[in-house]
């Protein structure tokens, strides 16, 4: 019996889980929850995710939501299979957790409203808050400088190997790189090197194909 992932493969948070499944070589099935028609707010989905968000998973009787928690669970449960996403020993794992949490608290808080204004609002015919976007980009620049410094002496965020810390950034970064924010990344040597390397991974390429983004 295969794990069911409720969500949309073009949405960032479900992508985080799909990427984890692909890296860990875990079979899965996507059950489409249509965000354009607000299916995630309907009673049927609220039973799976009471905050009305995606993704959620159902694995037999086991249910879970919050994309990062789902990714951590599968990375732990399938520790011996596929890419090791959580580090080899406790101190390393904690640094993986540290940089994964940095994604939530420093990166996503800026990336999400930027993507909302530059990508999603235009699609819905809504006006982009240009002033807000400039403010957010200025703050993002400060954060990216810290990442740049980190990646100057580390191949990946948590050290020598690709881990959850890098993976968790990829969905939102993927969207940001489709906006003029890509200049901010390209202008930073180490961030650019890191982004090129992690997007060359087969799991990412497969995800992009599934989401209809790359040929």
């Amino acid at each position: 019996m295969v794990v069911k992932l409720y969500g949309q493969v073009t949405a960032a948070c479900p992508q985080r889980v799909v990427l984890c499944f692909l890296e860990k070589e875990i079979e899965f099935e996507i059950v489409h929850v249509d965000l354009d028609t607000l299916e995630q707010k309907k009673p049927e989905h609220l039973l799976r995710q009471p905050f009305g968000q995606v993704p959620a998973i159902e694995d037999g009787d086991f249910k879970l939501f919050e994309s990062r928690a789902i990714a951590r669970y599968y990375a732990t449960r399938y520790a011996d299979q596929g890419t090791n996403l959580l580090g080899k020993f406790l101190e390393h794992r904690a640094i993986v957790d540290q940089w994964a949490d940095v994604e939530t608290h420093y990166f996503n808080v800026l990336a999400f409203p930027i993507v909302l204004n530059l990508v999603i609002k235009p699609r819905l015919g809504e006006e982009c808050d240009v002033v807000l976007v400039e403010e957010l980009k200025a703050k993002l620049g400060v954060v990216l400088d810290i990442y740049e410094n980190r990646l100057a002496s580390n191949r990946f965020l948590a050290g020598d190997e690709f881990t959850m810390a890098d993976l968790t950034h990829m969905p939102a970064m993927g969207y940001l790189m489709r906006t003029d924010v890509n200049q901010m990344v390209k202008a930073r040597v180490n961030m650019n090197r890191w982004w090129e390397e992690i997007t060359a991974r087969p799991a990412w390429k497969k995800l992009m194909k599934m989401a209809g983004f790359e040929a």
Partner: protein
Amino acid sequence: MVLTIYAPLFASSKRAVVTLVEKGVEFESVNVDLLKGEQRQPEYIAIQPFGKIPVLVDGDYKIFESRAIMRYIAEKYRSQGPDLLGKTIEERGQVEQWLDVEATSYHPPLLALTLNIVFAPLMGFPADEKVIKESEEKLGEVLDVYEAQLSKNEYLAGDFVSLADLAHLPFTEYLVGAIGKAYMIKDRKHVSAWWDKISNRAAWKEVSEKYALPV
């Protein structure tokens, strides 16, 4: 060599401090005065490049992000004190889920209330009434979901206290105290019972008293 935690008087650090106390781990603390901007000094930036608190230093090992620190302590000292991670991988999955809910849904509106109501007058910046109103609404919606969850389970992740519950302590203390919105907790029967249970734990009472911010 003894563990050192930085800025114990401030709420984010208290997530880590209460975990240390619950697990009976010896530690020292170093004060960092956020009201005076000490976290922006070069000596502090050298250990936490984003200039945020807390940081835990364990000999040569440094880790930041309060929830990453909580996970590290809970794992490292698994065999002593209460098991805050659950007994199985599935229980841990639930702990991670509710820890992430705290980080992504509960904390942001509550932080906005804390900054605008408690710290604005202290630090001389104007409170944003619109943000206060929207944050209270958002937090109320989240607490409604908690009310449903806690009517089925004694604690957030199940019938055992975990990191997910502890993560809520420091800022919720502001909510029922200095923010002056205790009704948000008290008016919800199951949330109120849960709050009474977790805030009366010996470890939290010790942390709350010993590391009270003198304001």
